[in-house]
């Protein structure tokens, strides 16, 4: 009923004798044009808001950042820009702080991502069992993700505090000497990774859980008929069944690890956090960018770091594609 009314209203050709008058013909042609516009144009109209915002807030800044990175420019005098071509990049290449930050970003990335995804896989497997209050556990595992970085990092900073922190207190009660979590390189990186792991494990676990529930139960039945143990079922049915989700979380975590910023900044407390500790022992690329821009007020060098980070991600992507192609060729 509704459909026929709309058809009539829109002037679309109803079944019946053909009409020959010119006016009606134009109306029909206009109707057809509108229809074509609708089919061809509407999708663009729908995605336009995203692209307009993307252009204004992502693409333009990206291009402008690359322009700034070719200049010597300070925050206090943004209108005075001295063109230096690729000097900033050459300088960054020779800067030990950059390589140190890159190394820290990779090590913290590995220390935080690998256990995080392993634990998420285990957690998802447990959540996948039939159990009481499963909804409660599923929601609970998402709570850390909903906590703000600042709040989480601040609490962990207190827990890892040297003199009055909970962890050193616990270590002390079993006779272990207190660890200087902030000042020593590896303890600091482990502590920062703990914050990341705590925040993201539940989120990844829920992604895995959703994928696991899409695996047909028949496969498990078949596997158990073949005499596969729980562990065999996990490694041979579950893991292959959620492979694409695992790849997705690895990609997301890698991007997240490259951009790690808030956790080490707050962990280091104030100016000390910006440099990633007195010895730059946990300065990530994100922090180096911030130090150049908002401590040294050198916008050109800061933009250079930003572009270096972007190029690194592109490089990682290309390398991954190459490896994939090589592997598919050899197999």
């Amino acid at each position, binding site marked *: 009923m509704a459909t026929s009314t709309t058809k009539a209203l829109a002037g679309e050709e109803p079944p019946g004798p053909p009409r020959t008058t010119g006016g009606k013909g134009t109306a029909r042609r206009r109707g057809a044009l509108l229809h074509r516009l609708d089919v061809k144009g509407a999708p663009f109209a729908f995605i336009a808001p995203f692209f307009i915002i993307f252009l204004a807030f992502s693409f333009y800044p990206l291009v402008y950042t690359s322009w700034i990175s070719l200049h010597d420019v300070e925050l206090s005098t943004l209108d005075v820009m001295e063109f230096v071509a690729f000097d900033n990049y050459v300088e960054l290449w020779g800067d030990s702080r950059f390589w140190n930050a890159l190394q820290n970003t990779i090590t913290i990335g590995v220390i935080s991502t690998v256990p995080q995804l392993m634990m998420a896989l285990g957690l998802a497997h447990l959540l996948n069992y039939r159990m009481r209050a499963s909804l409660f556990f599923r929601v609970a595992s998402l709570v850390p993700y909903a906590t703000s970085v600042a709040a989480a990092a601040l609490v962990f900073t207190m827990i890892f*505090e040297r003199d009055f922190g909970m962890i050193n207190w616990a270590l002390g009660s079993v006779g272990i000497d207190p660890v200087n979590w902030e000042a020593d390189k590896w303890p600091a990186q482990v502590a920062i990774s703990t914050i990341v792991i705590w925040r993201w494990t539940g989120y990844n676990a829920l992604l895995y859980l959703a994928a696991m529930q899409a695996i047909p139960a028949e496969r498990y039945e078949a596997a158990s008929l073949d005499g596969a143990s729980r562990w065999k079922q996990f490694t041979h049915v579950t893991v292959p069944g959620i492979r694409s989700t695992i790849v997705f979380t690895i990609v997301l975590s890698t991007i997240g690890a490259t951009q790690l910023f808030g956790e080490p900044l707050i962990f280091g407390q104030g100016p000390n956090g910006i*440099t990633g500790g007195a010895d730059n022992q946990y300065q990530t690329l994100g922090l180096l960018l911030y130090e150049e821009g908002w401590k040294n007020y050198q916008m050109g060098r800061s933009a250079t770091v930003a572009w270096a980070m972007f190029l690194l991600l592109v490089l990682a992507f290309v390398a991954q594609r190459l490896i994939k192609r090589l592997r598919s060729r050899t197999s």
Partner: protein
Amino acid sequence: MGTLGSLRRKAVATVAAVGALALVAACSDGGDSVTGGSKDGDKVTITMGLFGVMGIKETGLLEQYEKENPNVTIKAEIAGDEQTYYTALQTRLAAGNGLKDIQGIEIGRAKEITETQADKFADFAGMSGTDHFLPWKQSQISTADGKVLGLGTDIGPMAVCYRKDYFEQAGLPTDREEVGKLWEGDWNKYVEVGRDFKKGFKGDDVAYMDSASGLFNAMVYGHSEQYYNEKGDLIHDKNPVVKDAWELSADAAEEDLTAKLRQFQPGWDPGLANGTFATAVCPAWMLSHISEKAGDANKGKWDVAPAPKGANWGGAFLGVVEESPVKEEAQKLVAWLTAPEQQAHIFTEIGNIPSSQKALEMADVKNAKSEYFSDAPIGEIFGAAAQEIPDKQVLGRKDGTIKDTFSQGLALVEQGTARDKAWSTTMERIEKAVG
């Protein structure tokens, strides 16, 4: 499927697109004026951007001014952290948007402002009733050609805050005059007392001072030339003053006289509350922080003794933005806020030391005592310290950054890095930071 439905969809899409555009456009559209201040008939609205605890809003001065001038409304916005505040201020100065009529300027930024932003601030030169400041204070916010970009609020003369109970346990005198005599005239003696303290103190886990960087700052800030010479050249690596301060602070760090804390960072506060150190070099404005964080449990345990040598750490100015539509009214307000009576009021309320010579001589200021710090005569101690501050202090553009970098270098020594290596690392970092 019908066209009306899709027409409706299209309409929705168009509205969404237009909405998105409007959002984008809205971002570039500011308020009525550059600074948010306005004049409507005789009704005046003045906006202020401040940081930390400058005491202007906290002690009710703004309300008092509004009461005395009923046509004036003041809107003050206070950022907690100066670093964040200054970054935002710089961005806004560069964009020419989002500024307030009146902006606070910290002493560490004064040089950068006078060198790079002088044309964006209104001139106070020759304004009547503004000749009551300490001789060096106003010169710090003046440009080379004599333009005065602001008026002074507080200054940061230094003393040493110490725990009487710990000094007693270590067999040291506890009376503030005797304590002051122990290290009178020489920071080396202050460290020497630390060695005695370490030997004499029986208990565990109490260090002599909070951090090596506090000592370093106090020593450097006591001299006319610090990180820059008068010509504006960097001398941080050659200045014997800096090197001496470094060596003595490194001595203290290596001999375990420090609690290895970072001032004003979260680890420092529980240190104060639990009493993990016996002394801290304290500028006047630090007292309110100590009393708040050390808490009632430690009331009366702290005392204040004169520092070995006078030095100035911190202080601020108030400037008025040139483009402000209420420039004159704002300048009048700044002059009133920084007048001797108001500075004295702030001091008696929260302890910020006036930068006004006249205010320092007022009886209320001179006779002020701090109940928390065992009734120490802080007016007398800090007033005397203020007179000891060198009459000329050469500021540089990157003073703040250089200070932070040296603090980090000393933290390296506290963590066990050899001092020569820490020194060369610090020099490299400063090179990067100023280059």
